[in-house]
């Protein structure tokens, strides 16, 4: 009771006291402070009716010489403290003198490496506690952080998912670090899909990271881990039909995805006609996919950027790995050439389908006078060399090769009466990528990081067919030969420089420029027909197109306030053809508004331009699709995308991201009605229409990132439409991959040190296809029309509309929805450690409940021989019914 009374009394009295001290401070006095210490000066002021408290600062012993005439005590205190590096403030009714803290500018920089392998760590978080500033390492493991420190000692915390967090105490002065992080020992805790940066703090929208380890944990068809199939389990990213290449992001086309391997674009990274990607997961360190608010450093495609970073190679010790799967075998090794200074990484993969199938095929298809040799194989190779030239210089050289080859050699000898006939048929088809790149990292001072890259990227597709027929009746011999060739090439030579500048703790500025010299040979046909001495040779060739693509960008990722982070930038580019130059300025913006430590609101805007088109038929995306540039007639594609979203960290285990987007696309190309890519006699420009597209939707992504059970649930609600003046009579129609609902569920469960289970389930709305829904008759002229014209009456021929024909009609383009697609895949992995290394066996089932999803459909008409009644039915082909998966891998 007495305490309560005292408190109430204090509350009542304190305003009066406060008022009293303020009156004292405003009191005007005249005082001489000659040759006395500051401490004594304060004592003299205390005699004027104020209470002054202070610690024993060195500054108090300084001598002063100053006189004040009719100045307020507040003025005098202010003057004295200011001149001596001190400050004062009123606490209750006591004037408290304190020392102004000295802010010191410090720049720390360096690299973060995996302690075990010595490889650079991408997206590692560094946080300096005393200044409360943080940053993430770039794709070379580099960081630079400008600090304003108040204390002489700094404390740097370095963290990365799956690694032990490390803390470094150091004196706050410019320092260069080389930090090594240890992997976590607790193997039962796995961590999956993450963003490089904390979503609550970064401006990034629609960007997701996966590491090689995470990709390997996703169940794969045939046990063949596949990066490009794995990313289609993420919201907003859709796969085409089974067996087709390409992926589709937020309603965009397969050509609108920029796939970068160590910064070098790849045109068609697929094996087996799209069945598998040509990226060997053993060679991959990290991938990042952007589908929304693209930073200004990216350009050239409308819908996504898939940035793949290859492994550098272990700097400490040699690692070898051999994996045998149902489809292929792969071998990889990496290690130091000079310990902690230089390393190499090499992976090779080859399918052995031909080694098994060719002998069987030859045996089965061998008869009297008949031989058939048919096979297919693919190969890919990744090689990377890196060398630390100095603390500020590092050199990389990398090579990527991939190739697919199909061949058929067939011969038959026939005897018909007295005539001997020998037929020979040879077919070849192949495609592949070749990439060579040189990169040099250099650090200017400790705030400007530069990466210079020079590369060549080439893609080639070809198909040849040759036939020869020799007939002899013993007296004369007739020979016929025919051949047809087709090929398509894209070759890029390029050089680019990317700068990262860290001027202050609030800004990370990136800028750069690049030049690409393109050569396009979009389809060259050769045809040769020889009969006896007569030869017909015909070459139909689309002209080779040479073009230069120049681009430059600048972006600033900066902290506007403690709660608002901005990424503003602009990407400019120009495409130079022989007679035409296209230019574009593409503004980009990303805003992160941190509502609390766990919730952030995000906004994004991206203006994108694309100078390349992929000419693909509406059927399926294939390796034979033509990459073509803009021309004098075909304008660049461009898009504008707005996105809004929120990121929520519920706790350390669960994360939620919700994003909505609207994307408008212009100058898209598509084949004209009835156009066929088989018709090679027509120039590709004459076969296309130009139109626009629109897509919008919402994506929900819930992740469980820690614990024995990890995984995610993704859901996309989306619309995607196309409008072409000459297609569907100008009416808007749904895009083939307009999928209203798309659900993906991924779960990884670590049972023990030895066993883990992985499962994935996908569901999506069926593709939109054009199917005839009605048969009806054409108009028919009366015979009067022909009689009036005096047309002769043919015996074997009908004039147009002289009789009724049948129209098989669809009421609009993409008028029908195929059945919904869903599939469950499960795998179990057993790992065993041995003295020499470890082995790992993965087995499982693809499409566990044998859902027969259509990959292709077709019409088949049959006639009942007894009733002579025709029946027509649609049939579907399912590429992946229930199938086993298996792979065995040893690492040593």
């Amino acid at each position, binding site marked *: 009771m007495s305490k309560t009374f005292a408190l109430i009394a204090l509350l009542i009295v304190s305003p009066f006291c406060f008022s009293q001290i303020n009156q004292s401070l405003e009191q005007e006095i005249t005082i001489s402070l000659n040759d006395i210490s500051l401490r004594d000066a304060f004592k003299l002021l205390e005699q004027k009716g104020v209470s002054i408290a202070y610690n024993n600062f060195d500054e108090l012993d300084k001598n002063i010489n100053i006189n004040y005439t009719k100045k307020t005590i507040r003025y005098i205190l202010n003057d004295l403290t200011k001149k001596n590096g001190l400050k004062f403030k009123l606490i209750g009714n006591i004037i408290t003198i304190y020392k102004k803290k000295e802010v010191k500018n410090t720049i720390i920089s360096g690299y973060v490496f995996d302690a075990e392998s010595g490889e650079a760590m991408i997206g590692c978080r560094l946080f300096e506690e005393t200044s409360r500033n943080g940053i993430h390492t770039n794709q070379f493991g580099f960081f630079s952080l400008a600090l304003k420190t108040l204390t002489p000692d700094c404390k740097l915390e370095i963290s990365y998912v799956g690694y032990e967090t490390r803390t470094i105490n150091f004196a706050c002065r410019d320092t260069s670090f080389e930090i090594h992080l240890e992997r976590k020992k607790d193997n039962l805790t796995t961590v999956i899909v993450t963003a490089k940066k904390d979503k609550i703090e970064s401006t990034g929208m629609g960007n997701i990271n996966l590491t090689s380890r995470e990709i390997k944990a996703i169940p794969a068809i045939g046990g063949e881990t596949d990066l490009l199939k794995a990313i289609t389990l993420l919201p907003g990213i859709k796969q085409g039909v089974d067996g087709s290449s390409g992926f589709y992001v937020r309603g965009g086309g397969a050509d609108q995805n920029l796939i970068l391997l160590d910064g070098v674009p790849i045109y068609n990274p697929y094996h087996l006609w799209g069945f598998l990607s040509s990226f060997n997961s053993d060679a991959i360190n990290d991938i990042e996919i952007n589908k929304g608010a693209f930073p200004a450093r990216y350009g050239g495609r409308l819908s996504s950027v898939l940035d793949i970073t290859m492994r550098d190679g272990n700097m400490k010790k040699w690692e070898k790995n051999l994996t045998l799967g149902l489809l292929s075998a792969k071998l990889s090794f990496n290690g130091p050439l000079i310990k902690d200074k230089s390393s190499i990484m090499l992976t090779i993969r080859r399918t052995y389908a031909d080694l098994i199938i060719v002998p069987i095929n030859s045996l089965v298809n061998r008869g009297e006078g008949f031989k058939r040799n048919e096979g297919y194989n693919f190969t890919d190779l990744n090689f990377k060399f890196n060398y630390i030239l100095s603390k500020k210089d590092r050199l990389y050289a990398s090579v990527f090769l991939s190739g697919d080859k199909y061949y058929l050699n067939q011969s038959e000898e026939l005897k018909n009466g007295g005539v001997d006939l020998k037929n020979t048929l040879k077919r070849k088809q192949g495609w592949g990528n070749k990439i060579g790149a040189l990169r040099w990292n250099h650090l200017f001072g400790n705030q400007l990081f530069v990466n210079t890259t020079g590369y060549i990227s080439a893609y080639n597709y070809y198909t040849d067919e040759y036939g020869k027929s020799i007939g002899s009746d013993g007296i004369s011999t007739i020979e016929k030969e025919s051949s047809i060739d087709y090929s398509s090439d894209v070759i890029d030579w390029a050089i680019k420089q990317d700068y990262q500048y860290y001027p202050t703790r609030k800004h990370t500025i990136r800028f750069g420029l690049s030049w690409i010299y393109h050569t396009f040979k979009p389809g060259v046909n050769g045809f040769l027909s020889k009969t006896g001495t007569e030869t017909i040779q015909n070459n139909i060739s689309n002209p080779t197109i040479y073009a230069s693509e120049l681009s430059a960008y600048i972006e600033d990722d900066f902290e506007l306030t403690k709660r608002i982070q901005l990424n503003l930038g602009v990407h400019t580019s120009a495409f130079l053809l022989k007679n035409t130059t296209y230019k574009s300025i593409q503004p980009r913006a990303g805003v992160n508004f941190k509502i609390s430590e766990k919730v952030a609101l995000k906004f994004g805007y991206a203006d994108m331009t694309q100078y390349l088109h992929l000419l693909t038929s509406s059927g399926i995306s294939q390796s034979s699709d033509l990459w073509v540039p803009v021309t004098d007639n075909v304008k660049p594609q461009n898009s504008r995308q707005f996105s809004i979203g929120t990121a929520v960290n519920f706790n350390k285990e669960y994360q939620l991201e919700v994003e909505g987007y609207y994307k408008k696309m212009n100058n898209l190309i598509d084949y004209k009605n009835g156009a066929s890519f088989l018709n090679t006699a027509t120039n590709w420009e004459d076969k296309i229409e130009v139109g626009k597209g629109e897509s919008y939707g919402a994506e929900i992504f819930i992740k469980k990132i820690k614990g024995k059970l990890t995984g995610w649930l993704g859901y996309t609600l989306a619309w995607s439409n196309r409008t072409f003046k000459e297609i569907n009579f100008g009416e808007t129609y749904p895009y083939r991959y307009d999928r209203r609902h798309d659900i993906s569920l991924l779960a990884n469960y670590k049972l023990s040190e030895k066993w883990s289970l992985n499962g994935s389930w996908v569901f999506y709305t069926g593709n939109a296809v054009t199917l005839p*829904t009605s048969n009806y008759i054409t108009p028919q002229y009366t015979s009067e029309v022909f009689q009036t014209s005096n047309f002769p009456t043919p015996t074997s021929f009908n004039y147009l509309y002289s009789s009724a024909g049948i129209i*098989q009609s669809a009421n609009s383009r993409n008028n029908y929805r195929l059945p919904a697609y869903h599939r469950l895949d499960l795998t179990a992995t057993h790992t065993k450690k041995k003295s020499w290394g470890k082995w790992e066996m993965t087995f499982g089932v693809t499409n566990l409940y044998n859902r027969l999803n259509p990959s292709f459909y077709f019409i088949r008409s049959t006639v009942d021989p007894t009733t002579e009644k025709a029946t027509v039915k649609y049939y579907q082909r*399912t590429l992946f019914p229930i199938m086993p998966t298996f792979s065995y891998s040893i690492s040593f």
Partner: protein
Amino acid sequence: MSLNKILIFSLIFGFFSCEKELVLDIDGANDQIVINSLFNPDEVLSASVTKSMSPLNPNLIEELSTAEVKLYENNVFKEIMTYYKSPDDVVGKFYSTFNPELGENYSIKVKSGEKEASTVNDMVPVNTPINSSAVNWIEWGDSTNIIRYLFDITFVDPPGASYYYFNAFFPVYELNESSGNYEFFANQYLEIGTNDLPNHQLYINNSLLFNDEGFNGEAKQISGTVTTFTQPSLISDENEQVDRIINKSKLYIQFHSVSDEGYKFHSSYAKEFSTAVDIYSEPTVVYSNIENGLGIFAGENITPLEIEIVY
């Protein structure tokens, strides 16, 4: 390029795939009223009225001969059309009592049972007279088995958007060995120089479709060839060859001016017809201007030509 098909189907599918019937829910789109009429001022306006069928159930054409078919002129009811089917007709027609006239809008409304359908309004386009026409050259020979006729026609395109198609035939007669008679041989095709008509579209049954883009309101000359694959050698006598191939032949042309509605239909149907067998071709939706139904109702104007061969 066709190797793709072979490869995909034979390799991948052959190894793993399986096939089953795809059950489609497309019945709701069938059983619609189909109205077809290409009317011109040289004959009475007529229209066929039938029912659409399911593509999965290819039955015989079902006529709606008892339907009520009303003809409107400039949106004013004109008359009820009368059904008539001659013994030679596969499909009967509903006939009006008059020839359509230039400058008038016509439309049709059909009622069959509970169902109703109607056409849009359309009119007969202006006739385009042919100023001149000539056959300039004939090529034939024993070794090539072909005869090629080169011709020119010149016409003046009227102002405003115009659409055309024409048929061109040379009735080459050859011996039918079974009957012993000389008969018209019609395995022939029409070609037009791409410089003459960059936007032309080869149509079915020896016809050519084009618009006046690039020569609107101007005189236009079109040069083309008709090639027939025949066997002049079957006519043993050389003089008779010349007589039948040149002297007894004429170039017959039907030059149609068609309305915008008609052009949309012809253009889309030509694509659907010519690419139906190519599974890799892009799908084509055939234009229809029938509300609550299918078919085409379009006006046209026909100029017939007979060109003597001067060689």
